[in-house]
């Protein structure tokens, strides 16, 4: 029985060609997402998670970027073979995206209602009035009080949490099958973050929508994702379900990340040190030979001069590390 994945990414390579060299932002990523599923994409700055999302949306600026290789199959179609005109029909309609900074992703000179309406008029051919009314409904759906008033306001008149909700409203207007949320709550206060995450969870259930959630916040991942992929230096280094990532992390990087976050449930005494991963994330223009994490890994051994493939020591749990090579 053929897989019924909504999204399937195979061997994605997105590079940036700069004066200082080629930055391989995404260097061989395979991912899958089932209908209605939630995939968490975790990693720190520069790991390639945002570039992966932009690659799916085909929003990579060309030049200096380019998807040099790969296949992104969405609902049976390889998005990389589509023309720009065909891709535009998909963006905002079947696949939509919300970004980290709602103030910079909303157009400051247009009313909220206009911005949501634009999506509806473009993709569903709605009339001006019809789209406006639907916009009010969408704002209500995302929990904005007095939506008939707010719909006439400009982004600067809304708080950060409300702008993010407005962006979610825009992203949901055409009932997309897939929503990509890139750090949707990082810029928000924690109580507003909780509201937004709860909203996204609820809407997902109600609309059967699939979600790719990109974040570096492991707490958010624990509460929202079902499957988790950890990225480092443009690659996936670990991939499994959310419980396993936290209960039995296998990759030394994942283990290091989990140990380095201060935890509210553990109070060992104030001066207890966090176990920090030594060193820095390498520059994409100056990656180590072999395993990209080898220069920071406490388990590094001779095998690591060769880059490991994704191994599967336990069914359903992939890890890119020679420690799990079967002898």
């Amino acid at each position, binding site marked *: 029985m053929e897989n019924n994945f909504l999204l399937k990414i195979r061997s994605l390579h997105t590079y940036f060609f700069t004066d200082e060299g080629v930055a391989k932002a995404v260097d061989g990523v395979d991912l899958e997402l089932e209908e209605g599923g939630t995939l968490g994409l975790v990693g720190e700055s520069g790991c390639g998670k945002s570039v992966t999302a932009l690659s799916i949306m085909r929003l990579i600026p060309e030049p200096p970027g380019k998807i040099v290789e790969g296949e992104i199959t969405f609902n049976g179609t390889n998005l990389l073979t589509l023309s720009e005109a065909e891709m535009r029909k998909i963006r905002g309609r079947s696949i939509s995206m919300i970004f980290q900074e709602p103030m910079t992703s909303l157009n400051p000179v247009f009313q909220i209602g206009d911005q949501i309406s634009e999506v509806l008029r473009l993709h569903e051919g709605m009339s001006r009035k019809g789209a406006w009314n639907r916009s009010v409904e969408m704002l209500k759906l995302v929990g904005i009080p007095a939506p008939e008033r707010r719909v006439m306001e400009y982004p600067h008149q809304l708080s950060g949490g409300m702008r993010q909700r407005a962006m979610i409203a825009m992203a949901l207007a055409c009932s997309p099958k897939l929503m990509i949320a890139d750090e949707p709550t990082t810029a928000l*206060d924690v109580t507003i973050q909780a*509201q937004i995450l709860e909203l996204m969870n609820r809407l997902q259930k109600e609309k059967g929508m699939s979600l790719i959630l990109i974040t*570096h916040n492991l707490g958010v991942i624990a509460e929202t994702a079902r499957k988790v992929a950890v990225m480092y230096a443009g690659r996936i280094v670990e991939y499994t379900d959310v419980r396993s990532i936290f209960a039995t992390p296998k990759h030394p990087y994942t283990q290091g990340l*989990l140990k380095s*976050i201060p935890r509210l449930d553990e*109070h060992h005494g104030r001066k207890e040190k966090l176990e920090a991963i030594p060193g820095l994330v390498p520059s994409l223009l100056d990656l180590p030979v072999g395993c990209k994490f080898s220069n920071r890994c406490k388990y590094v051994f001779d095998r690591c001069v060769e880059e490991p493939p994704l191994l599967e020591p336990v069914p359903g749990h992939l890890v890119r590390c020679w420690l799990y090579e079967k002898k």
Partner: protein
Amino acid sequence: MNADGNLVEVKKLTKFFPVHSHFFSRAKTFVQAVVGVNLSIRRGETLGLVGESGCGKSTLGRLILRLEEPTAGEIFFENEDILRYDSERLRHLRRQMQIIFQDPYSSLNPRKTVGSIILEPLIIHKIGTKKEREERVLKLMEVVGLRPEHINRYPHEFSGGQRQRIGIARALALNPKLIIADEPVSALDVSIQAQVLNLLADLQEEFHLTYLFIAHDLSVVEHISDRVAVMHLGRVAELALSEDLYRSPKHPYTQALLSANPFPDPTLERKRIILQGEVPSPIHPPPGCNFHTRCPHRFEPCDKEVPQFKEIEPNHWVACYLYGPNQ
């Protein structure tokens, strides 16, 4: 509380910022950034100051340093009223208290080398001879984990975490007694955050520092602080020992904040306290308890008068009518 044990004490500290409707108008309304705060920082401790955007925590830090002048109230440093200081004594005082800023990108002069950034406070305060100053800069760089051969590099050549280390070295240059760290790790990746937090803990021990640690990330604050004060809309809602605050938070706002914090444990079934509504404006704070409009436990007295900040258990202070009437 032993008065000798307090490095800093603020009494009824208040700061209102005027809001001008246009450039030349006289201000009719004010942003009530800090209102009637009573707080002390004990010698050698780390006092955490936590709250969401706009709660006044950064302003409070700046008031203590006299980077802002208070509208009302008193500030004592080592039992002396520093608001009476003339510019000469104030300059001398500035050697005793330093600040580390949140943004490692905007807090360093991009046109100065690392060496000259760290050297600057020594020159301004005329510390030592040229040779002694240079030795001190090298020592400071070593102490914060920067390589001495980078002394002539510019900020843009460093990562965020390294720049934050430069900011820390600069803050240590004058051997201060108090360091106010205003969101020092918020802009950093998780693994770098752990490194910098460990560094701050080491430095505190080595140089007998007192910290006021301002942040919005509860897990980070709990980890590093001895006591934590929670601020809401310019006032302190709760103050307790770190472990007491997290084990048994008394103020409904603290409870909501803790509940909203996403937890890196997917097996946890949590009952979330989702606050309803928007954060009230600091220009028109609600009457009575400034949290009552969002409080799930509000009752009869809450919208009448501001509740008193009382010690309801040893070392545990709250401003909330749930814990007995006003005195």
